[in-house]
């Protein structure tokens, strides 16, 4: 896995460090399930079904959707929907991305690598599952990159 690039979202770094200390598979899973239990779907004022395809995560079999809304302080607030009721990993990932990236400096969000998925879930994920979770990360990062570019007048 690549070294973290600076700046890096502080809360994400803390979570990765914490998960890195957990060797027990079940303990990690239970922590991620508790995380998934905090999942809250995108509020109706942001989006309503049917969710538009441009917010759909490519290759995500859990049918995840991502929205990024600019806040007054210039950072982003992330919202998610996961349409597959069995998409528990996707819900956990959504909570992690929201809690760690919403309100973080855009430059830090733009430095989140796709392989954060392995740092969070471990290496035993299937390719399909990994692609979907990476896709969620990519969409969040791209939102920050686009806003940075817009701010810079590019």
């Amino acid at each position, binding site marked *: 896995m690549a070294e973290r690039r600076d700046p890096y979202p502080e809360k994400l770094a803390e979570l990765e460090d914490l998960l890195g200390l957990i060797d027990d598979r079940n303990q990690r899973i239970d922590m991620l*399930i508790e995380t*998934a239990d905090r999942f809250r779907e995108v509020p109706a004022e942001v989006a309503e079904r049917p969710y538009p395809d441009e917010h759909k995560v490519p290759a995500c079999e859990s049918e995840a959707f991502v929205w990024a809304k600019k806040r007054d302080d210039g950072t982003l607030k992330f919202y998610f929907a996961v349409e597959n009721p*069995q998409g528990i990993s996707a819900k*956990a990932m959504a909570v992690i991305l929201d809690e760690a990236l919403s309100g973080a400096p855009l430059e830090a969000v733009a430095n989140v690598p796709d392989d954060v998925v392995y740092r969070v*879930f471990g290496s*035993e994920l*299937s*390719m399909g*599952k*990994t692609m979907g979770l990476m896709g969620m990360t990519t969409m969040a990062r791209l939102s920050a990159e686009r806003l940075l570019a817009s701010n810079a007048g590019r």
Partner: protein
Amino acid sequence: MTAIAERGYHDPDALVTTDWVAEHLDDSSVRIIESNEDPLVFRAGHIPGAVEVDWARDLNDPLRRDYLDREGFEKLARRVGLTPDTTVVFYGDKNNWWACYAFWVFQLFGHTNAKVMDGGRLKWEQEGKTLVRDEASYPASDYDAPARDDSVIRAFRDEVLAHLDAKGSLVDVRSPDEYSGRLLHMPEYPNEGALRGGHIPGARSIPWARAANSDGTFKTAEELRAIYEGEHGLSKGDDVIAYCRIGERSSHTWFVLHYLLGYPNVRNYDGSWTEWGNLVGVPVER
């Protein structure tokens, strides 16, 4: 959905309904095994009394690319309290894709007293049946397994090459994009995919999920025959090798062809595209 016995399957006993499972939760001769793609799903809630068999941790050798050996299988079987007489019922997420994979690995060790719960986890959930987070444990059992037999239902690279020369039937169960070579791998993880895209020459493209209904149950034999035979020209007497990326999706198709349609000669090429697409010199078609 039509009752299993009325769907025209070759071996209807290979499937059980969610109701059957619900009626056998306390049956000590039955062990319910959940196998999922998503590692969080089992511990987030499972059928009461079920145990988890994880495709990566439990079924694969941790070092070599291969399945567990006899000793490993015995250890697994003893851990979940199986005897050779235990009726094992597999279920899981993704339309039982991983349940069929675990079922297939169990057949390599001759545990034929095995079934798949039709509709898998999705149907159980949709019916509002009980899910629990408490994990069951069973006293360790005695289980003496035979040596793994790879000769009947598993195909290796050289056998696929020979099969190709003999113009045997090949079924590629991946997505159309994988079959066509448009999708190779995750962009930043080429080691997870293949250096070449496409399919084994002559392979028919029949994505695995076509065998399942939207509620995760298997289609009737007539509907399955319309797909595999009507659309793609397979016939029961064919020697068939199915493959996907690592052999997990193709185990679902193997189950369909062998148990539901009664094809006697079906093998799963678990090396699949992650092996074939990286091999030097083998033919590839796009």
